């Protein structure tokens, strides 16, 4: 009888302990095979700065824990780096080098390298929805939900902007103007030119 009681108590407390293994809030929970979970190579969007982390699963005599994942040679020990300055991406347009204050030059000289086809317009429309619509509104005349709060979003059909050229639009998407910020870190040049095609249809509505 005594043994039975102790046994029951053990099983119950063991179960309670196991239930606490689940993740929630700040607790990520326990891992089943931790050696196979943590990347040995540098992961760009992951960083473990604690050198002791995962020391208990080390299979070698090394003094740095298995989970440690930071590059001490980089600023802030980050695993990711920007490309070297002035590098040119393969298979893409040459970098856009016209400076921000040369809007007039861009407006006068740039031409859209993409054809005015249905596919380009459809892509442009999709990209517009993802990257422009929340400020400029679904059809570019009334500001979207963010635009209302942000204020200062012009209508594409207003006298000031309805006749601006494709080069002007491209330059402003890339580097910004007035209150609008640069979007060249979010959109490739090809994507920007697709958006330009679509925005031109909105200017003419």
């Amino acid at each position: 009888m005594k043994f039975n009681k102790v046994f029951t108590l053990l099983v119950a407390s063991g179960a309670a302990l196991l239930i606490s293994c689940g993740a929630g809030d700040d607790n990520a929970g326990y891992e089943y095979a931790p050696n196979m979970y943590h990347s040995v190579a540098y992961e760009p969007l992951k960083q473990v700065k604690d050198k002791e982390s995962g020391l208990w699963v080390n299979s070698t005599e090394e003094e740095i824990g298995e989970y440690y994942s930071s590059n001490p040679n980089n600023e802030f020990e980050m695993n990711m780096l920007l490309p070297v300055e002035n590098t040119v991406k393969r298979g893409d347009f040459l970098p856009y080098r016209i400076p921000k204050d040369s809007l007039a030059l861009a407006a006068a000289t740039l031409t859209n390298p993409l054809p005015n086809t249905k596919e380009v317009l459809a892509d442009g429309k999709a990209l517009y929805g993802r990257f422009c619509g929340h400020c400029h509104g679904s059809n570019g005349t009334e500001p979207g939900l963010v635009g209302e709060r942000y204020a200062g979003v012009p209508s594409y059909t207003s006298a000031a902007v309805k006749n601006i050229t494709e080069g002007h639009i491209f330059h402003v998407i890339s580097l910004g103007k007035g209150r609008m910020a640069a979007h060249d870190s979010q959109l490739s040049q090809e994507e920007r030119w697709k958006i330009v095609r679509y925005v031109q249809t909105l200017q003419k509505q």
Partner: protein
Amino acid sequence: MASKHSIKRNFKVFVVLFSLWLSYGSQAAFAQASAVPTDAETIKAGESLFKQNCKACHSVQSRVVGPALKNVYDRKDLPWIYAFVKNPVKVIKSGDEYAVNLFEEYNQIEMTGFPSFTDEEIGSILAYVKDQTDNAVVAEPATADLKADPAASPSPYVNAIIIGGLVVLVILLIVLAMIISKLRSYLSNTELSEEDQEYIAKPDGIFATLRNKALIGIVIAVVTAVVTKATIDALFTIGVQQGYAPTQPIKYSHKVHAGDYKIDCNYCHTGVRKSKNANIPSPNICMNCHSAIDKGANTGTEEIQKIYDAVENNTPIEWVRVHNLPDLAYFNHSQHVEVGKVACQTCHGPVEEMEVVKQYANLTMGWCINCHRDTPLNTKGNGYYDKLVEIHEGKGEFTVAENGGLDCAKCHY
């Protein structure tokens, strides 16, 4: 004679010019409100021009991006206003003191020029502005702040009431137990008749039932079953981080950004259609909007200030990664989102409703495989699949599994 004449004429010219200058001066000082048209038609034309071209940055009554426009015709003379609206940059560059001060006051952002406007058109806009100035409607103060509904979260009193009730019950039990033991000791110390003693010696109702062998057996069986089930369930949660919702360095709310303001996920997670990782936005993307929006709906300026600090000091914001797929499995976002057209919510759940992001799916292998078995391959408009679709015709649904979606090496390599 001739010289006298010319002096007289010169004097006349001077008088005329002087009076003109005087009248001009008074005009500039006391406004040209009278020069602004007031007929309904002009006001209406001005209203539509204002709404189309000016509203984005100007309001009549309050400062938006640019200054409030009420009484603008009292501040400068009409020719100056015409020139400024047509080409603000030119007026500022000319060194005009008023224009330069405006430019400095408004964060060195030049107003967009409207060279295509005629003087009449600008006049009609002024007419609308004057109409609005004179017939000002007292606007209610804007209460645009999106506050969370307090009724949505359960009241903290509910827990207190439950706990209080339990405490009262426990106290009651203790009191009853004490009464029983007191009665027992009293009874054992008193002289009782034979009949009464027999009655006391008889086991009570509850204890009799508790000693029932069959009941004990059933209870043990049920407890064992429950404990076993709980143990197995618990074992299965090891290595599964479903529900993980870590505290982030900034109390960023997906509910506000993606839910209330409907910003597309892709706007910030720029890699989601192009690369393996969806990407965590760097502060420059936050600043696209937060350069102007410095007060949040939930936390005011406190949390947004952290972005400004990060940008100013050039320090990274160390977000805590929520979804930690084990290194032994490969997953690519672009393959699923761009090619497969899978919606973000399929795996991440209703992120647009989450104040704090939590891991929605369990991200186990079984979960991946089930989806690969059930989901038809998205082959529409994708030339790569034409031949495969042709070969597969008449062999049932062409799912991801049919295309090698269950092969080990598809994800483990």
